[in-house]
């Protein structure tokens, strides 16, 4: 039971996954399957699907080496609509299936599509363990703050007091903040984006895909049927400037048209301050400069706490954390590879030596 130096595999990004041949180019159409998309009209999932289909060609990876794994829920139908390899699995278990797949296959780009119920309720355990292990996969967590496929019960991200089919007097459950949870599990890449902002969504997905390790991307996604308007404050042209706290690495965290910024609070956390010269206001220099590459997740966690737990009037959006840490699968494969190298010879000869080893005796 002693710790041993594992030696760090040195692969970066999507190394190991075969790329397209010189001159070969794929388009969004190449990634569209022949299956009819069956989400409700106006569902935020359409926008994410379009963005993903549009963005996948930019990865330059071979289509046959991309796999989407999902759980159960509206968003988990995602793999059927992409002409890649895919598995629509069972409720909450996609991260565990993706872990086995990613660990046994270095040459695959593995994606998980999940929702707030799938990832945070029934599959919460698998999610946190995938994040702590840092298995090489990109998790798209569609958060619509409601159970859609089962027709409108509150979810683990629904605000307290929410009236739903299963909570006629209002929910008494305290919600999870997915970004805080992921940072608590020491995820190496944590981001949040919005279904309706294709540009931001695409840029975050690009960074997530390029990250070696588990990337968690929370996507605020509107459910027009059971939770319409849940994200109106951060989508509305008039209010979003004050509702979205944009996170950009190396930039001071300011919002509200430059009137507000994040500063360290006396209690040790982070708070919003007005920028200006008046009493109680702070200067731009005092505003926190976002450092997504900081190994210590404490500040990123503090920033994540500025997300409203109730109706969403304010939320930090962008990449909270992006740090390098050895991945589980690279190390697991590294151990297998080094054991193999240390044991030359035919497999069948070594098998004979193994089963015929130990204290044996011969009867003639």
């Amino acid at each position, binding site marked *: 039971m002693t710790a041993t130096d594992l030696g760090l595999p040195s692969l970066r990004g999507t190394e190991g996954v075969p790329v397209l041949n010189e001159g070969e180019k794929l388009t969004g159409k190449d990634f569209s*399957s022949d*299956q009819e998309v069956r989400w409700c009209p106006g569902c935020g999932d359409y926008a994410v699907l379009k963005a993903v289909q549009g963005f996948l060609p930019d990865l330059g990876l*071979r*289509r*046959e*080496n*991309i*796999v989407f*794994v*999902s759980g159960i829920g509206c968003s988990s139908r995602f*793999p*059927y609509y992409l002409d*890649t*390899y*895919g*598995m*629509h*699995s*069972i409720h909450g*278990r996609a*991260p*565990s*299936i*993706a*872990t*086995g*797949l*990613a*660990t*046994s*296959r270095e*040459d*695959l780009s593995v994606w998980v599509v999940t929702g707030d119920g799938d990832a945070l309720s029934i599959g919460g*355990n*698998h999610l946190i*363990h995938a994040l702590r292990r840092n298995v090489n996969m990109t998790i798209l967590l569609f958060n619509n703050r409601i159970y859609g496929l089962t027709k409108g019960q509150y979810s683990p991200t629904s605000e307290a007091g929410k009236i739903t089919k299963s909570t006629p007097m209002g929910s008494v459950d305290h919600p999870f903040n997915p970004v805080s949870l992921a940072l608590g599990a020491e995820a190496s890449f944590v981001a949040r984006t919005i279904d309706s902002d294709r540009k931001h969504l695409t840029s975050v997905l690009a960074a997530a895909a390029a990250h070696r390790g588990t990337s968690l991307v929370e996507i605020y996604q509107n459910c027009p049927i059971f939770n319409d308007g849940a994200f109106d404050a951060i989508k509305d042209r008039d209010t979003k400037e004050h509702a979205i706290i944009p996170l950009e690495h190396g930039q001071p965290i300011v919002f509200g048209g430059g009137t507000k910024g994040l500063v360290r609070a006396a209690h040790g956390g982070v708070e919003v301050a007005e920028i200006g010269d008046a009493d109680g206001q702070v200067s731009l220099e005092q505003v926190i400069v976002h450092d997504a590459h900081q190994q210590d997740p404490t500040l990123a966690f503090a920033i994540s706490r500025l997300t409203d737990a109730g109706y969403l009037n304010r939320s930090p959006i962008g990449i909270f954390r992006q740090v390098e840490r050895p991945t589980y699968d690279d190390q*697991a*494969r590294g*151990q*297998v590879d080094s*054991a*193999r190298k*240390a*044991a030359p010879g035919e*497999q*069948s*000869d*070594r*098998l*004979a030596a*193994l*089963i*015929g080893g*130990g*204290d*044996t*005796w*011969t*009867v*003639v």
Partner: protein
Amino acid sequence: MSKQVKQLDRVVIRFAGDSGDGMQLTGDRFTQESASFGNDLVTLPNFPAEIRAPQGTIPGVSSFQVHFADHDILTPGDAPDVLVAMNPAALKANLGDMPKGATIIVDTHDFTGRNLTKAGYESNPLEALDAEDGGDQGPLAGYSVHPVDLTGMTVEAVKEFGLSRKDAARAKNMFALGLLSWLYGRPIAPTEQFLHRRFARVADIRDANLTALKAGWNFGETTETFVVQYEVKPAPMAAGTYRNITGNLALAYGLVAAGVQSDLPVFLGSYPITPASDILHELSKHKAFGVTTFQAEDEIAGIGSAIGAAYGGALGVTTTSGPGIALKSEAIGLAVMTELPLLVIDVQRGGPSTGLPTKTEQADLLQAMFGRNGEAPVPIVAPQSPGDCFSAALEAARIAVTYRTPVMLLSDGYLANGSEPWHVPEVADLPKIDANFATAPAEGEEFLPYSRDPESLARPWAPPGTAGLEHRIGGLEKADGSGNISYDSANHDKMTRLRQAKVDRIAESLPPLEVDDPTGDARVLVLGWGSTYGPIGAAVRRVRNEGGKAAQVHLRHLNPFPKDLGEILKRYDKVLIPEMNLGQLSMLIRAKYLVDAVGFNQVRGLPLKAAELAEAITGLVEQIEKEDAR
């Protein structure tokens, strides 16, 4: 002093002591000595679920039974001939299993007031033995009791090494082993080599153990307590290389072999659980064979990761016990629906719920058969002895890969921890397993992930990475052929029947059953499965030795049943099905073949006893004869 040597054909010894006394190790070393001497043997370890239950108490007693003989034997023995009891609790816990006249060697050292009380003795049973002729000799009356201060003599023997009294006393198990080795003429050289290896880095402990071992041997030779030395000659065995092996080790080797024979990397996703964890431990040592072991966050992730690896083209395996199967049920259904090869290994233990974690039982058969939602047929195979776990694993892998299906392998706690001499097979003789991956379709042709091989009804296995085979699978019902989502009622009916037909089709690949009916006119058939093979075989032999006639058939395949089973069952007037459950195979046999099978059922956490079973068989034979006479 030269001692009398007496020949025996078989002996059953039980070593019993506190959980911390090293009884499992002692038994294991005695077994290895007997194995290398050439006896046939069967072992039965029996230990508490607690790692260190309160010292000196009955719940803390750990024991190891070994049965060795000059002929081939099948069971660990119904009742021990010799008990080695290291403390009062070990004596009290095991005395009930000892037939009168048996030999009992007692370490007197712990027979003190406090330890006697802890074991529940009001007075010292050893002192009662000194009663005057005709007086009450207490619970040990009628036994051949040898009270020996094993601990005291051990401490005395190793004092030159300057160990603490506690460390010195810990070598008492080696003293006991040395004594028993002398008593039964076992070679101690293998144990000496073992101690050199085991304690290579702690010279004083190594030397103390070696010294205690020899001191125990020498004590036997010189003392007048033991006047007779016993000899059990080697058993005749078929030519070849042998080793002593436990079921869990054989199973792990079988999985490594399945990887080699199929040319597939093995991926084990597992969560630790008694009594299956040793398979995880063992496989984690064999990365050089391309074996990846993943200790998952829970049982579900164990099977989930194995399904993911199987989708990726590995030989996916998950290992667990009954409670773990309950948690994996939904995922097994996913593997049924996605038709991916997967090995699900259930090392059964006493249930329900947490049940008896360290004891054996066969009560997961119906869970394996039916424990899923919907019509979800899963092939089931079961090994019949510890060494047989090796070939059972290979057979499970053959079925899983050939038919693209999850396969349940039902071992149990007795097979897992019990051991027997194993005839090591030649690798060249092992079956090859063909993964037969799908290849890219010809230009203009469409890949149909749910098309089927006409013979096996298996669908193509198409791991990611091949252009042109991109496809989506999942838990929703599949359209026949394309595998697209289908809610069509006729399609669901067809697919449900296809999945069942595919599993039924496995029967075509099974060899005929071996019917053990030497005279060919037995009228009672004893049908079993799994680890009851030994007790059933021994019981049938007893019946035959006493002039009775009984046939034996043992099932390796529980789903589907072999094609000739129905015809065989109908040849006999009575079918007796002994099981360590309340009649699960009986229920399946009755339902499928409309045979009025008679059950012999025990759930005591221990293997069936051959003598009791023989009585039941004889009872049935006599019943038929009586009916004839009428």
